[in-house]
């Protein structure tokens, strides 16, 4: 694949980097990233991945754009209110970069469709807002041997980790199983500073880009935490867990399953 003059100019700040170059940019254009959740985390991740020239971006979300989303979900605008989030996200990504093919999935990601969804992608970004979804994405990615970025944000805090098959613990190694409903506050109950999605979602995009171009160290075997109030980032080493139910030596989870628990933005 040869670059057009327009592409050479569009990606010039990438191509000039020795870690990316023409070769890395070509890898980005040939790559496929799936973003689950077009919200606080998914919006900035999708914008940066589209701008970076990730050739195929899948985006999955069942919701429509709501006024309370716009404080943080920067891929949607006031004009998009009521529109399907995946449609709004698609339009913005295509406007940012016509090189990108966007596949929009307006659906709840669940045990019966997630394996089909992740199968075709090189990297998955968890931009969901509830524990059942986060465990589902983890299990599916472990079972399908797909790398993915987990993240969570609340109030003035955020965290993320990266799973790459065979290179360290998965989300379930660390957190075992979802806490009971309402035991741990959600963004809807506790609030979140909008820019937190920008910080952590951008870091998820960074992990995807590094994975695709094959440069640098990923957050495998580490949890990066960020506290905006104290302005501290910490990289906490994560041990392995040989007894993990999905990636351990004797796994008991052999296919994805749904926990019965509503997310904070699922309407009653």
């Amino acid at each position: 694949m040869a670059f057009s003059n327009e592409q050479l100019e569009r990606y010039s700040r990438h191509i000039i980097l020795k870690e990316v170059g023409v070769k890395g940019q070509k890898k980005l254009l040939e790559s496929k990233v799936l973003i689950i959740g077009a919200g606080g985390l998914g919006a900035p991740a999708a914008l940066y991945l589209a701008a970076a020239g990730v050739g195929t971006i899948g985006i999955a979300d069942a919701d429509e754009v709501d006024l309370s989303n716009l404080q943080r979900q920067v891929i949607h605008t006031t004009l998009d209110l009521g529109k399907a989030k995946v449609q709004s996200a698609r339009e913005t990504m295509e406007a940012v970069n016509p090189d990108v093919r966007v596949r929009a999935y307006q659906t709840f990601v669940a045990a019966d469709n997630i394996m089909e969804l992740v199968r075709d992608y090189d990297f998955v970004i968890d931009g969901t807002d509830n524990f059942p979804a986060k465990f589902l994405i983890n299990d599916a990615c472990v079972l399908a041997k797909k790398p993915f970025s987990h993240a969570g944000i609340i109030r003035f805090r955020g965290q993320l980790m990266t799973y790459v098959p065979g290179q360290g613990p998965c989300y379930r190694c660390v957190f075992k199983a979802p806490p009971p409903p309402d035991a741990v506050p959600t963004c809807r109950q506790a609030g979140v500073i909008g820019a937190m999605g920008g910080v952590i979602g951008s870091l998820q995009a960074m992990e995807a880009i590094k994975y695709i171009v094959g440069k640098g160290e990923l957050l495998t075997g580490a949890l990066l935490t960020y506290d905006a109030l104290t302005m501290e980032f910490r990289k906490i080493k994560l041990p392995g867990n040989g007894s993990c139910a999905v990636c351990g030596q004797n796994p008991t989870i052999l296919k994805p399953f749904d926990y019965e628990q509503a997310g904070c933005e699922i309407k009653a």
Partner: protein
Amino acid sequence: MTITVAGNKKDYPGALTVQKLIELENVEMPLYVTVSLNDEFVPGGTFETTELHDGDSVEFLYFMGGGR
């Protein structure tokens, strides 16, 4: 004894278990925290019986569910 908690060295008088440290440090959502001790997970249900020693390093890992 000196324990490194979340990257900070702190002095504690007397014997200490993981459970006691969780209480002293006012850990949020103590029932749902994951603890690593010297880069190994402390199994759930053993916080009361896991004793800490001078020089140990403890990390608290928290559920963070938001994102959309």
